[in-house]
């Protein structure tokens, strides 16, 4: 399986390392030709406004949107979650997303940087072990549509959700040495989704 990391802005390096630790040899995706090479994509943490804008300028916005609609497996953390959401609140005027996940996400919902925090939460992948979750000016999910499974919550707000092909977290597993979520994306989201297509 060829996995790409959208490398326009953000913590690309950390996602690349996490994927390598999961036995994947990821490529950096900035252009349509690179997108065409990958089976699955990771949207990093960063500034969702900047990433969306650069995607548009360099003509990769619509191609990503189309690939998502066509069933490409995607994992997004933080800004990546915002980019996967069909609806966003507290957005910059006219801010666009790739969409695909039937959720409503509130940007910077946990507050400014002084409110950023880390904690241990449970993640519903079958293991009862808690996972270290780092929230940085993080969004949360305010509403989920049909077909969305909530995998983790914080103060009754979903912070990890999935559909058949898409996974999104408010927090940054790539900033920790625990690669459980990336492994979950590869094994439980991307592989089954790609199998089905075959």
């Amino acid at each position, binding site marked *: 399986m060829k996995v790409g990391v959208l490398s326009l802005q953000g*913590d690309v390096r950390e996602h690349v390392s996490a994927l390598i630790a999961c036995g994947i040899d990821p490529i950096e995706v900035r252009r349509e030709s690179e997108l065409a090479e990958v089976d699955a994509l990771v949207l990093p*943490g*960063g500034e969702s406004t*900047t990433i969306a804008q650069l995607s548009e*300028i360099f003509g990769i916005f619509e191609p990503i949107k189309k690939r998502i609609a066509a069933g490409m497996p995607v994992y997004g953390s933080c800004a990546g979650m915002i980019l996967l959401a069909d609806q966003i609140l507290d957005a910059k005027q006219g801010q666009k997303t790739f969409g695909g996940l039937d959720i409503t996400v509130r940007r910077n919902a946990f507050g400014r*940087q002084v409110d950023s*925090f880390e904690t241990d939460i449970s993640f519903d992948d079958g293991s009862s072990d808690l996972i270290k979750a*780092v929230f940085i000016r993080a969004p949360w999910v305010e509403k989920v549509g049909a077909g969305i499974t909530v995998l983790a919550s914080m103060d009754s707000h979903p912070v990890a959700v999935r559909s058949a092909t898409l996974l999104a977290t408010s927090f*940054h597993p790539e900033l920790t040495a625990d690669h459980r979520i990336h492994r979950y994306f590869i094994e439980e989201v991307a592989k089954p989704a790609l199998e089905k297509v075959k």
Partner: protein
Amino acid sequence: MSEVKGTGRVKRGMAEMLKGGVIMDVVNAEQAKIAEDAGAVAVMALERVPADIRAQGGVARMSDPDMIEKIQASVSIPVMAKARIGHFVEAKVLQSLGVDYIDESEVLTPADYENHIDKWDFTVPFVCGATNLGEALRRINEGAAMIRSKGEAGTGDVSNAMQHMRKIGGEIRRLSSMREDELYVAAKELQAPYELVKEVAQSGKLPVVLFTAGGIATPADAALMMAMGADGVFIGSGIFKSGNPAQRAAACVKATTFWQDAKVVADASRGLGEAMVGINVADLPAPHRLADRGW
């Protein structure tokens, strides 16, 4: 399930999210909107850009809280603000306003000519300037969660930024090539803590994100700094002291992302109008050089 705020991971992690981006100096809400629309990853709220501080002289201080709050209200991206070197009360004030990052900056007039702020004492993260590796590691030892090479702010002359990036990079490469038993003397020479020196020698990079600043005025300048190993770029006076700020801002964002692609940098450089006029650093008398502030 306790929540811990202001941890090293949360502070340094915030800077990781800014990587590959451009942080722009703005003096009002209007400019902040222009910066956000151009794709800035954050804005630095300040009363006067460095070029004006330089031109007008006098003591430069923290900005008016009203002005910072107006900027915070106008954009959704992170808002940073500057405190004077060693002025921990200005820093506490900025933290209480909820700014996302504090720049303990040599661009303002220092409040303390010996000590910097004890940055561990804060929930909000700090970025500090450095001209060499020893200075960077001293700041990290004091709790800085992000470093920017200083350059010479307010000049539009990129030569000092270049020199500082080369210096920091060169010193890191030198450490990486050393025998482990030589690192004690290296720490002494760098005037930096041994533990941090050892960490840099092993990892081959700073333990925090390294941006560059000071004198960046064109898309090619921004791309040059990325090619020198910067994780991202601060642009101060370069944007709003130029002929067409909105276009220049967007152009610098493009060039920062596609710094490896000269064609993109070329396209971004077209028809930008006048760049900021600029001052040659060599023509600045030594007491007017901001990069020498910080110890």
